[in-house]
Each structure stands twice: as C-alpha cells, then as structure tokens.
C-alpha cells in the first residue's frame, strides 16, 4: 500500500534533477564574484599599503599612491547623495503616499523606469550639456555629482517606494481613521518603518555611484591631478577613471597597481554593502508586526 510505484520513482528522479540544476545555476552566480575577488586579492593585494592609499601618484602614475582618486571618489559620492537622496525620497513619498492613480502618475512611473534604463554614457553627455555648459559649472565635482545624481535617482526612488509599500496599509488606515493627516501618518508611522529599506537604496546608490566611469569622464573627473579638491567647483581624480587610465592609457604601469586600485574600489563597495546589510538586520530586529 505504501510502496513507491514506478511513477513515484520517476517523479523523485525529476525532482532531484531540477534541484541540482537550480543549485548549479546558483553556484554559477556566485562563481564570478568569488573569482573576481580572488584574482583581485592575489594580484592586487601586494600593492596595498598605507603609502599606496595615502600618497600622491608619481612618475607619470606608474608609482606612488592613489590618494587624490580616493578622496575624489568620496567627494563625488557625497555630493551626489546630497543632491539625489532628498529629491528621490520626496518623489517616492509623493508617488507612494499621495499620488492618485491617474495618467500623470503612470507617466511619471514610466519616466522613472526609462530613466533607469538610459545608458550611462548618455547621462554623461546630458551632464556635459546641462551642468557643465548650460549651468556653467564647468568640469567640476558639482557637475559630475549632479550627473551621477540624475543617473541614480531611479535607484533611490524605486528602493524608497518599495520600502514604503512594505509598510502595511492597515497602519495607514489606522492613522487616517483617527484623523491623522497623510503627513502625520508618514512622519510617525510610515517613515520610521520604511527607513531600513530607504537606507538600503541609498547605499546601493553609493556603490553604484562610486564605480561609474562614463558619467564623470566629461563632467568633472580628471586624468591626472596630483592634489586634493578644495571645493565642489574643482576638478578631481576618481577611482574608477584612474583605474581605466592606468590600465589602458599609461604605458609601463606595474601590473599590481591597477589590480590594487580595483581591490580598493571593490572593498569600498563591499564595505558599504556590508554596512547596509548590518543596518537592515539591526532595524529589522526592532520591527515586529
């Protein structure tokens, strides 16, 4: 009565096959990440030293450190965040909490999706035209960061909107039915419970911004500039462009240097992601419903 039939055995075999297939695909996914990290650590590891991180490049960038690029990337990311986070969060709040479901809203949503799909080189040209030339910011941190901000705005909006939508409607209704306005509801209930998702979006933006090359090439990043930026209207070096330059444009760079730059860049990104995950775990631990 309870013995396996031929059909049961076949089912079990197919089941096992698919399980293996999916497991294999998952491993395939992790493999490139592991390989990249492995190669970078092995070949770039020897380049890393205090001197590498905290001194100027010398000898036509074939020796010395990467300090101006490191500092430049931090500048670019911070200014881009200051420009995009308030706008992105406000837009997401409007779309998620206030916007009626009408044609305008749908058009805006479509625009956001399209903005996310625009190639970064097109953003670069837009930034050149709009910020460098039209607004006369010149090639500067400001122009480059604003270009990055426009490019990553959809990330912030989508992440924020999604995290706002994970806050159950029942909480909003409870507030509205006590006479709370939308804003009171947002401030007291929705935002505090969505903040972890919003932070995740912000940090995603940081990792994406710090690695972008094309958008900053024409708008504010310099090929070689051996001093630190003093303000947002200065040009600056940046990690991503520096990596491109010493890998392809400068002769006789010792092999470990570009790997070292890549390792520092990816460590920055991974560190940001790590912080984001830790934050999320911490905030999720506090929220129970």
């Amino acid at each position, binding site marked *: 009565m309870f013995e396996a039939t031929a059909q049961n055995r076949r089912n079990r075999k197919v089941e096992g096959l698919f399980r293996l297939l999916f497991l294999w695909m998952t491993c395939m996914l992790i493999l490139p990440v592991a390989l990249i990290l492995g190669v970078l650590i092995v070949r770039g590891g020897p380049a890393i030293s205090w001197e590498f991180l905290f001194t100027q490049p010398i000898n036509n960038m074939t020796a010395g450190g990467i300090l101006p690029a490191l500092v430049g990337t931090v500048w670019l990311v911070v200014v881009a965040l200051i420009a995009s986070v308030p706008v992105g969060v406000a837009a997401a709040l409007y779309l998620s909490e206030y916007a009626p479901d009408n044609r305008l809203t749908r058009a805006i949503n479509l625009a956001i999706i399209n903005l996310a799909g625009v190639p970064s080189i097109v953003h670069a040209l837009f930034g050149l035209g709009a910020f460098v030339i039209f607004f006369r910011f010149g090639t500067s941190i400001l122009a480059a960061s604003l270009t990055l901000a426009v490019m990553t705005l959809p990330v912030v909006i989508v992440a924020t909107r999604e995290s706002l939508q994970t806050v159950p409607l029942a909480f909003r209704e409870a*507030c509205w039915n*006590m006479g709370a306005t939308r804003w009171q509801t947002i401030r007291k*209930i929705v935002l505090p419970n969505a903040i972890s998702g919003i932070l995740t979006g912000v940090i995603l933006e940081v990792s994406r911004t710090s690695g972008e090359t094309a958008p900053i090439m024409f708008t504010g990043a310099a090929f070689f500039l051996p001093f630190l930026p003093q303000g947002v209207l200065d040009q600056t070096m940046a990690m991503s462009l520096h990596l491109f330059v010493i890998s392809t444009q400068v002769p006789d760079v010792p092999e470990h240097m570009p790997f070292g730059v890549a390792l520092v860049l990816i460590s920055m990104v991974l560190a940001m992601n790590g912080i984001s995950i830790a934050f999320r775990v911490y905030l999720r631990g506090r929220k129970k419903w």
Partner: protein
Amino acid sequence: MSAEPVTSDTADASAAILVEKLNLWYGDFQALLDVDLRVRAGAITSLIGPSGCGKTTLLRSVNRINERLGYVRTTGSIRLWGLDVLDPSVELAQLRKQVGMVFQRPNPLPLSVRDNVLFGTRVHLPDGRPPNRAESDRIVEEALREVLLWDELKDSLDRRGTELSLEQQQKLCIARLLPVKPKLLLMDEPCSALDPAGTEAVEELIWKLRGDYTILIVTHNMAQARRASEECVFMLLGEIIEHSDTASMFLNPANRQTAAYIEGRYG
C-alpha cells in the same frame, strides 16, 4: 444613560445618528437604498445581515472612510447630533476625532503600548505639542483602565502594540480611541479575528462602554448581536428590513426574512 423606548420621533436629542434617505453607489452598483436609521445615544446598536447587505458600507459612511475609494457617490443625509457629516464643509479630521473606529483585524500601530494610546492626542492636540509626562501617564492609565488592560500591561507599556495577543491588541485599539473623547464608536466585526475567550472579553468591554459612548457595531455573529447589543438593525440587499430592540427582534421578529436570517436559514 436614559433607557427610553425607541420612538420614531426624529427631532429629539436622544438620537446620536440620524440617517435619512441615504443612497450610496459604488460606481454603478447601488449598495444602500433609501436607508433611514435612528441610533439612540449611549446605546449599543448592532447591524446584522448576510454578507453584502450593506451593513459595513453603512458603518463606513458614518465617518466617511468609504470616500477614500474614490468611486463612491452618496445622496441623503447622515446627521450626528444634528449636524450633517456629508456636508462638504465638514473637517474630516474633526469628524474622525469624534467618531472612533475599530476594525475586524486589530490594527495597533507599530509603536509602544504607551505611544499607541497617546497617538490620538498627538495627532489632535491644538498646538501640536504632546502633553507632558505626568499628563500622558494619566491619559495612558485612564484609557487602559477603561478597556481593562491596565493590570495586565501596566508594567509593559514599552512593549510594542503589535506584539500583544490579539485580544489585547483589539482592546488597545479601543483604548487608543478614548483619549480624544469620541462620542461615537464604530466597530466592524470587532471580535471576528479573536478566539472565544478573546471574543467574550472584548464583548464584555463593549458592554461596559455603553452609556459613555454610542456604539454602532457590525456583526456576523447572531449570538453576539443578541448578547452584546441593545438594539438591532437587520439589513438585506442594501435596505433596512427591521429595527427594534434586540430582545424583541430575536424573540419575535416582525419580518419573515428577519426571522429566517436569525434562525440561520441563510447567511
């Protein structure tokens, strides 16, 4: 409060809610047909009827939360203490302060018990500043005592409202309404998510609140309507079929359909 008999006199002050010729459409579908209803102040009135009969719609019309759907159209009047709530000049925040609502699923906010109780005062305080510590403590204690939660929760006011048992959550949701001194409480099947013990406890609480508040309660549960209400309104297909005091409706229904429904022949 007074235990005067139900009369058809519409002008007297004992009517908390006076609904006249209320028609309501969801898009093309008419959910309420010429509803006339007089709810006695200080009493518990239950709305009963099969699913889709319009009882929840009627309940949700009183504090106008139906309107949020956008495609709702209403004609007629709903007067609370003589004032028409459908008037465009009505400030919804004030209306909802006066008319508290309890939902089928307890919906405490993801805040501490204390902040849940104080939420209303914070939303509605004239200058937007919360009351001081001593004042808040008094408000919290008073509200929780009123819903019989104080002894259970007085040492855990910092626990999240969402972590309590369902029964406690539902009581907390009622407590949350009280500090802003509503006159009317609307309850939409307040016990249907609770186990029998929780149901009994919340029913007991509702019974205790009568007199201080006018309570309009939608229920699917005949036994509950019978136990925990003083007047009963039977609705069918968007119309009010019968409205009488609970005892006589259950002992001696005037209408054949009412009788069939309360005997459980359909539902």
